[in-house]
């Protein structure tokens, strides 16, 4: 019997593989931020930060933080040579206008129709949507990044989201710590599974319809 263990690193590692160089990518706060650590040095992925910059660099060296240079999570960052700053209207113009190739966001629930809920648990947690609604509605390809199961064991992939939606039918790809799925035709199409899990285990532990892609395979990560 396979026991589930949360593994955020494998999610970040798999998502980093989508990028071949030249893509413009927005990484959400939390888990998605980890993706930056796994992009190979020889691949130039251009990171956009919705608070107003393109060409996001790594965290500054200790003592080198500048009060006027933060990411959307208010953490000090750097900008790479060739980067640019802009105001919030331009930043979301870039996002809404389809000039961001990929957005990677965290998940409370994601369903097989491509609906995403990640900004609100009514009565319990209402942080606000920030830029998430624009990012999901506007980016060309939306990747939902999430551990496969709740602490309770419940699947975060659903037939139908029950929480308020961040956006309707916009999610293209879901990467969890058990596999990588495309959202197509109203089901989760399993493209890759990650050891030690198996397609059978995934079907059993997901509260949604899973279909195996014709080229479904085990991924080496």
């Amino acid at each position, binding site marked *: 019997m396979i026991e589930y263990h949360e593994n955020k690193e494998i999610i970040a590692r798999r998502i980093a593989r989508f990028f071949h160089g030249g893509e413009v990518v927005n990484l959400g706060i939390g888990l998605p931020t980890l993706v930056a650590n796994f992009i190979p040095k020889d691949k130039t992925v251009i990171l956009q930060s919705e608070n*107003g910059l393109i060409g996001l660099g790594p965290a500054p060296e200790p003592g080198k933080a500048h009060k006027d240079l*933060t990411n959307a999570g208010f953490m000090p960052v750097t900008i790479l040579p060739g980067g640019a700053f802009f105001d919030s209207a331009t930043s979301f113009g870039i996002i*809404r206008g389809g000039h961001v190739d990929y957005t990677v966001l965290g998940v409370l629930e994601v369903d097989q129709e491509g609906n995403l809920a990640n900004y609100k648990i009514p009565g319990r947690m209402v942080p606000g949507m920030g830029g998430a609604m624009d990012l999901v509605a506007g980016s060309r390809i939306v990747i939902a990044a999430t551990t496969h199961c709740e602490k309770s064991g419940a699947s975060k992939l659903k037939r139908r989201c029950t929480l308020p939606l961040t956006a309707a039918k916009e999610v293209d790809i879901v990467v969890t710590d058990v596999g990588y799925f495309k959202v197509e035709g109203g089901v989760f199409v399993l493209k890759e599974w990650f050891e030690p899990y198996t397609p059978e285990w995934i079907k059993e532990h997901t509260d949604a319809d899973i279909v195996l892609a014709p080229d479904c395979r085990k991924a080496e990560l």
Partner: protein
Amino acid sequence: MTEKRVISAAEAAKLVKEGMTVHVGGFLGCGSPDSVIAALAEQGTTNLVLVCNDTAVLDQKGGRISGVAPLVANRQFRKVIVSHIGTNPETQRQMNAGETEVELVPQGTLAERVRAAGFGLGGILTPTGVGTEVEQGKQKISLSGKDYLLETALSGDVALVKAKKADKAGNLVYSMTARNFNPLMATACPVVIAEVEELVEIGGLDPDEVHTPSIFVTYLVQSESGRPS
């Protein structure tokens, strides 16, 4: 060009009167007009409506407070129109207690609504929020088979913005990600107070590098907290 009046943070705060709608620049405190906010907190004016990206950071345990959070802690707002309150638990407490009304607006929509007000547009059509709670009570318009929400202009009475540099005419230049909502807020209110770190003579800025042209700015305030680091 005419010179703008340079006033103190306390004088700036006096321009904000009970019941007014106040647009404030800054993103979680980055690029916030901290000196004017401190003076407004000191002054204690209540019943305000805030238009801002967020209610900034209020972390009482960690002792961290930023942006408009002091005004939230002071309960100076009757209502906040923002995209995010997650880093300021006091906002959520006031909302749950029915003390403060919170209108959550997607960040890109907020930016466009403020810009629309400043630029004389009635509103804009955005795909953001279609199929979510955000569409409640709004007109939905379909163009070439795609649905959009009609989001209306959001103007205010006084804007408080923060720039790195200004010339005495009131032209503003922002620094890095401290730009964020500042240039937008500066368009949308009849009175615009710009807190600046560095004030130069007229002619001291390259007219190609100006981010906010002088005509948007009413008063200048020398920043106390935000001198160059």
